[in-house]
């Protein structure tokens, strides 16, 4: 039966499917030796990785191959990571390599990763600790080797871009024995030179050459440095611990100089812009003041100054009027009061009151008269007095008392018998 036979393509697809879906084969760490190495003109690497007992085809596409930091050669011991899949055209399985490094430096990578992790967890790479790089530094410090491409590139870049900046070189070993201590020492000394920014770095080299910049004491010195630090180690593709801890990473020493100083022509442009802005601003201010003046000049009151008084005049009129009115009112009231007083009988007819008073007096006088003892005497009564006192009872009189008898027309003495 035809149906039981597979085509080669079908089988190959099936095998490829199987391999692609195996989790273990998606990320493989493999070590071995390079043989049959070919670098394609388009940048892809084709080679075989082998050991004593076996071999596997390997392919590394340009995107990954461009990041390899050494030149692969046959016989080289390597460490690679990649995935396993099938190339259908040949039916061969192969490793698609993402990363490749020389074996033997593998330990350095482990140390690098460990230190990076440790410092990261301590926060040494945190964005909040990054100091900003001044726009226009007066003095740039450079810690690198006094000979070599790095310092040359930095100085020529600064000369080209912004020669107003002063460069202070703090010469240092940058590789080998004593390099890390020297770098640390110079980072500390840099504080004494009034620097606005500090470039720490070196030119390209192997991972061992760059290693001083992966040392913990260097990282901590950079972190503790009060001056903003730009790291510039090796080439674009080289990352060191110093890069992570620095305030800014430059891909190369030249790049560091470009970051550290502005471009002269940019600054000239900026100054021109500021000039222009100041001119425009003054123009605006003058315009504004002029407008204000015009406004004031066209102000109604300034043009009709008498209006300032009209309201006051009106008020004065009103006050005068009410004053007169109130004044009259008061006088009128007082007049009425006066009239009232004048019409009182005392003033209108004072004799009536006198007559009445006279009559009253006469009446009272006659009453008083009626009560007077003299009147009784006139009617024939008499008063008997003993020792100048009127005697009202016969009992008060004794024999031989000298009494006085008063009648209406005189008195006579008598003696009681």
């Amino acid at each position, binding site marked *: 039966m035809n149906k039981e036979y597979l085509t080669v393509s079908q089988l190959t697809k099936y095998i490829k499917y199987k391999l692609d879906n195996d989790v273990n084969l998606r990320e493989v760490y493999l070590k071995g030796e390079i043989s049959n190495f070919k670098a394609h003109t388009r940048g892809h690497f084709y080679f075989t990785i082998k050991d004593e007992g076996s071999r596997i085809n390997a392919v590394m596409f340009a995107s990954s191959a461009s990041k390899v930091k050494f030149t692969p050669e046959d016989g080289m011991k390597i460490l690679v990571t990649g995935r396993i899949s099938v190339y259908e055209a040949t039916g061969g399985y192969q490793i698609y390599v993402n990363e490749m490094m020389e074996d033997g430096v593998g330990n350095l990578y482990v140390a690098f990763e460990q230190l990076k992790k440790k410092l990261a967890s301590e926060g040494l790479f945190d964005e909040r600790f990054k100091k900003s790089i001044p726009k226009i530094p007066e003095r740039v410090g450079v810690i690198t080797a006094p000979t070599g491409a790095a310092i040359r590139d930095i100085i020529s870049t600064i*000369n080209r871009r912004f020669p107003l900046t*002063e460069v202070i070189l703090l010469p240092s070993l940058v590789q080998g024995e004593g390099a890390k201590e020297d770098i640390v020492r110079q980072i500390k*000394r840099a504080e004494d030179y009034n620097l606005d920014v500090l470039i720490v770095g070196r030119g390209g080299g192997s991972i061992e050459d760059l290693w001083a910049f992966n040392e913990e004491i260097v990282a901590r010195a950079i972190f503790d440095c009060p001056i903003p630090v730009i790291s510039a180690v090796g080439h674009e593709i080289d990352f060191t611990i110093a890069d992570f801890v620095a305030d800014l990473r430059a891909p190369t020493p030249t790049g560091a100089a470009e970051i550290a100083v502005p471009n002269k022509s940019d600054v000239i442009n900026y100054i021109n812009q*500021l000039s222009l802005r100041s001119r425009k*601003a003054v123009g605006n201010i003058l315009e504004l003041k002029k407008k204000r003046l015009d406004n004031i000049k066209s102000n109604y009151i300034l043009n009709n100054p008498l209006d300032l008084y009209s309201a006051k005049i009106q008020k004065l009129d009103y006050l005068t009027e009410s004053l007169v009115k109130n004044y009259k009112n008061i006088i009128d009231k007082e007049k009425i009061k006066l009239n009232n007083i004048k019409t009182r009988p005392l003033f209108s007819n004072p004799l009536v009151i006198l007559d009445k008073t006279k009559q009253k007096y006469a009446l009272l006088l006659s009453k008083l008269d009626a009560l007077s003892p003299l009147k009784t005497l006139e009617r024939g009564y008499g008063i008997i007095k003993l020792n100048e006192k009127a005697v009202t009872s016969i009992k008060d009189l004794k024999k031989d008392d000298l009494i006085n008898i008063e009648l209406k027309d005189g008195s006579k003495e008598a003696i009681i018998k």
Partner: protein
Amino acid sequence: MEKKEMKFEEKITELENLVKALENGDVPLDKAIDYFTKATKLASECDKDLKNAEKALTSIVNEDGSLSEFKGEVEA
């Protein structure tokens, strides 16, 4: 007493401040003219500084901490 010459960066900062003050607009006229005069002077000074500068002054820190001119092989 002669005032010490301002550093380039200080000049630029001062220039920026003057321009900002002017742009703020709320400046008496005599002050505005004063600011503008100063700004113009600073701008031309900065411009001159830049055009006159040819080569960065480069020094090397000696072991004893003193500075001396650095004569590395540097292309202009």
